[in-house]
């Protein structure tokens, strides 16, 4: 196709304001590797977007939804960057965290009710001294999500929130939305939305079993 483009047209197309959809011109997204090669390959920038909100929607506890984020969090703590768990639903179990490579000195847990949880998460993100802030929410509205997204941008931190998959149909300002589901005894990861990625119809990612 390039062969028949006239020189004038080539000049026009070089203009920085023109974006062409082609395989070699991915928009630049700064990202934190997820540690899962097959998932990295599907995400723009090759990982969790930095300075943005990622949303992980999961059907049930125990499908491997936390395994999805652990390698990235472990890598952050090993670089001595702080990781904050905001309102986790269960006890984050130290032996398993340590086995996953988390340096526990840089992991903090905040126990908070739902409104305080959103506030704490925003403060942590905004402060600029946290590598990643992970929050668990039963119910959070669009406005709060938007605040978290903005706070993540301000503090250039990685924000991750875990919510029930029942919220998948809701509108969300998150830069990345993943859905973790189970069928036939295997866990699948589906990219529902991803900033900078045009198609979300790529095949599901099969994890675990």
């Amino acid at each position, binding site marked *: 196709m390039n062969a028949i483009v006239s020189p004038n047209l080539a000049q026009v197309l070089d203009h920085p304001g023109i974006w062409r959809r082609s395989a070699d011109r991915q928009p630049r997204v700064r990202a934190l590797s997820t540690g899962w090669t097959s998932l990295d390959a599907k995400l723009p920038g090759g990982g969790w977007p930095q300075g943005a909100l990622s949303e992980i929607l999961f059907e049930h*506890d125990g499908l491997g939804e936390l395994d999805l984020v652990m390698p990235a969090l472990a890598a952050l703590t090993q670089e001595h960057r702080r990781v904050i768990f905001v309102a986790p639903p269960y006890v984050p179990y130290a032996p398993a965290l340590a086995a996953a490579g988390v340096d526990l000195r840089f992991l903090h847990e905040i126990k908070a009710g739902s409104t305080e949880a959103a506030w704490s998460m925003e403060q942590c993100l905004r402060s600029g001294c946290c590598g990643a802030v992970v929050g668990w929410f039963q119910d959070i509205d669009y406005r709060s999500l938007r605040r978290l997204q903005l706070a993540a941008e301000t503090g250039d931190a990685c924000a991750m929130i875990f919510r029930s998959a029942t919220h998948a149909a809701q509108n969300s300002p998150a830069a990345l939305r993943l859905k973790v589901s189970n069928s036939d005894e295997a866990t699948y990861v589906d990219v529902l939305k991803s900033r900078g990625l045009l198609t979300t119809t790529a095949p599901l990612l099969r994890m675990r079993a």
Partner: protein
Amino acid sequence: MLWACLRFPGLAFSAAFAATPEAGPSALLDHKARQRLIAMANDEAVGLGIRRGQSLAAARALCPALEVKPRDTDAEARLLGELAAWCYQFSGHVSLVPPHAILMEVGASLRLFDGWPVLAERLRQGLLEQGHAHTLAVTPFAAASWVFAASADGMVLPEREGVRRMLEALPLKQSGLPTATVSSLQAMGFRRLEDVFRLPRPELTRRIGREGVNWLDRIRGQAADALPAWHPPANFQQKIEFDGELDGSQPLLFPLRRLTRSLANLLAARDGGVQRFTLTLEHARDEATRVVVAMATPQRDAERLFELARTRLERTSLPAPARAIELDAEELPIFRPPLRDLFEPVRGDGLDWPTLDERLRARLGDAALRQIALVADHRPERAWRHGTPTGTVSPLRARRPLWLLPRPLPLRPNPTAVLAGPERIESGWWDGGDTRRDYYIVRTVEGQQAWAYLPVGTLDGWMLHGWFA
């Protein structure tokens, strides 16, 4: 030497009304006079015709709602000390001129603060923010500065000659001489200082006394001024007593802001910080409520100190309305500003972890923020604890779930498959926490991976203890 004089005409008023902001027409009573006379009134009261020297009865007749308070000289002295602490950041030699003025040597500070106009702007701005009306003058002689601060606000006379010329033109009333001396000089037909300066010295001494002559020498810079230097105190303790009782934390914020601000002034003067201070709230009958505000690192910013104290105070439930609030800070350690790499990009608010930690703790309470540590124990419930991780315990080899249930729950329906196990955990017979369980990794009906156990020797009664999330 260049002396700046700050006079605070409203100081007595601010000191008496420290506890509660004056709302509506208010006035101050002079406690010395046998007859109770108005010493000072705020703008609203003046607007209603209340004047200095009026009797209380006359003032009440003009405005029945007038709020009056007696002068409190102790509070005035304290407030002047606080202002001196604040001024100490601009000059190494600050001297109190009771009751309502402060002298500070600014000649040595001019270069640091980019000249007098900038310094004057900072002084005025800072005082206005604290709500203190003031007048200001600068001359090479301390006494002359004091005179001009009263008569000509904003006067700047860096040259000796200029000072003399301005003094000569000054009416006797504004010369700072005692009233009796002024009236006797006026009776002799003198109007301005110029006339007095022309008199032969022995003649003048005979008429106005040695002290009067000495004063005239001091304002002309012909006699030295003995100005004791003020030094910041080593600790902070201040109490504001209320007229009535204040209920709930909201009305307490006004006096609290005053207290934290004067603490911050002292800290700035000492070039120190505070890491821990106590707020004491006194009640009529109940025992006083104490609120300890502790910080991870020494702080000295007025706004931050107020925010921290406020959040702590709002979390405290008061048994009864408060009658007084007191702030005590015993230790004022050296303040070290946070070090930052010159080339390190500042992210977001640019807070460091201790500051964020404090902010979270202040709002959520100390218990809400914690870390997780490993414990060398085979029993799952005891293999972790809340606390600072040490890094000396090595994790187990066996697979463990990321989520642990605080308490095991019955798992229903029974799991569909056993993926691994059993792993027998049998321990703790020596400390009463005896545990004998066979742990399995199982899959539930929903496809979840769970960590569940059966009591040893049984095949039913699955207990869920964790999720492989």
